[in-house]
């Protein structure tokens, strides 16, 4: 049993990662399980802290996550694959790696924007962080 953890964020890059994961699933002799994971950033601003309770923040992150996951889930269902989706909150690279580790996924599949050195240094690359932290193989799709 091969379990692929596909990180999705609604971008074209993550759509291509999903394409790749579905292709792998279709061509594999082993049964393949696909798990979709979306990670929401924590709402760190002072106004959010002043006005919004922790419970509402979680509820909001969950709804935002479900909105991102709706498209990819639909594609999986149309292809006849059961959609397992998960939503995490935190630093995306850290959460993806933690999730892959704690739920025993065999591989992480994710898109990467392939930003230049400067933009990468400022905004950071989620893919790089996952590669650094993940205990299982990571497939980057460009």
């Amino acid at each position, binding site marked *: 049993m091969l379990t692929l953890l596909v990180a999705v964020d609604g971008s074209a890059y993550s759509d291509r990662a999903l394409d790749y994961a579905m292709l792998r699933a279709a061509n594999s002799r082993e049964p393949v399980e696909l798990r979709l994971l979306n990670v929401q950033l924590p709402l760190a*601003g002072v106004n959010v*802290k002043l*006005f919004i309770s922790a419970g509402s923040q979680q509820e909001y992150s*969950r709804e935002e996550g479900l909105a991102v996951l709706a498209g990819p889930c639909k594609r999986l269902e149309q292809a006849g694959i059961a959609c397992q989706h998960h939503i*995490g*909150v935190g630093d995306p690279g850290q959460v993806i790696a933690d999730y892959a580790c704690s739920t025993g996924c065999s591989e992480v599949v994710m898109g990467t924007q392939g930003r230049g050195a400067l933009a990468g240094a400022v905004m950071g690359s989620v893919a790089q962080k996952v590669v650094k932290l993940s205990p299982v193989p990571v497939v980057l799709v460009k």
Partner: protein
Amino acid sequence: MDFTTPEFWIAIGQIIIIDILLGGDNAVVIALASRRLPQEQRRKAIFWGIFGAVALRVVLIFFALQLLRIPFLKLGGGLLLLWIGVKLLMPQEEGAGRDIDASSNLLGAIKTIILADAVMSLDNVIAIAAAAKDHVGLVVFGLVISVPIIVWGSRFVLRLMDRFPIVIVGGAALLGWIAGDMIAHDVALHEQVAAWLPGPLIWAPPVIGALLVVVIGKLAAARRPPPAAAAGPVDLAQRDAE
């Protein structure tokens, strides 16, 4: 203060940081307050909420420049900024009573958005006025730069705070710094302050303000550790099953 002096550019930097800290999550608050509305109304509520956040800043900054000349109002503004700075460092209060409810009717959502807009704009405006030190050009700059941050900046700002947590500590210290400076420049107080603090000691109020915010904020955070430090990642999607 003109644009060849270092003070001018320091003020520019301070204003940009303040706008990012205090304006970056306004759109999130507005989206949260309107999330129970039907799709079409929701879009309208978010648009008018953001419009209100910008418009209120324009109105408030106009009054702020006049009002801050009244004795003791700078003292009040400075204390508010100190409180905001400490809040920035403290973890989320559990079960805090002043939660904005996501109202399911348009009127309720408008009410909460206006209330949030007023508070969010007020602290931002006082901070801009304090950092600009009555320089009208800088005040206008602070307003102009806050608009794109409010409208489009929330994702960028959340990412920035997530990647560089030092932004939050540094921002809180900056709020304390300008708060101390503002209190020292209150119309009723600044002559006594100048008499008590000769020469280089004039830097004491901003330094004390910055230290105060960071120390109080850190102590409060240490006393109340965030409860979310449970083992393993939290999976919000699992609530579907409940």
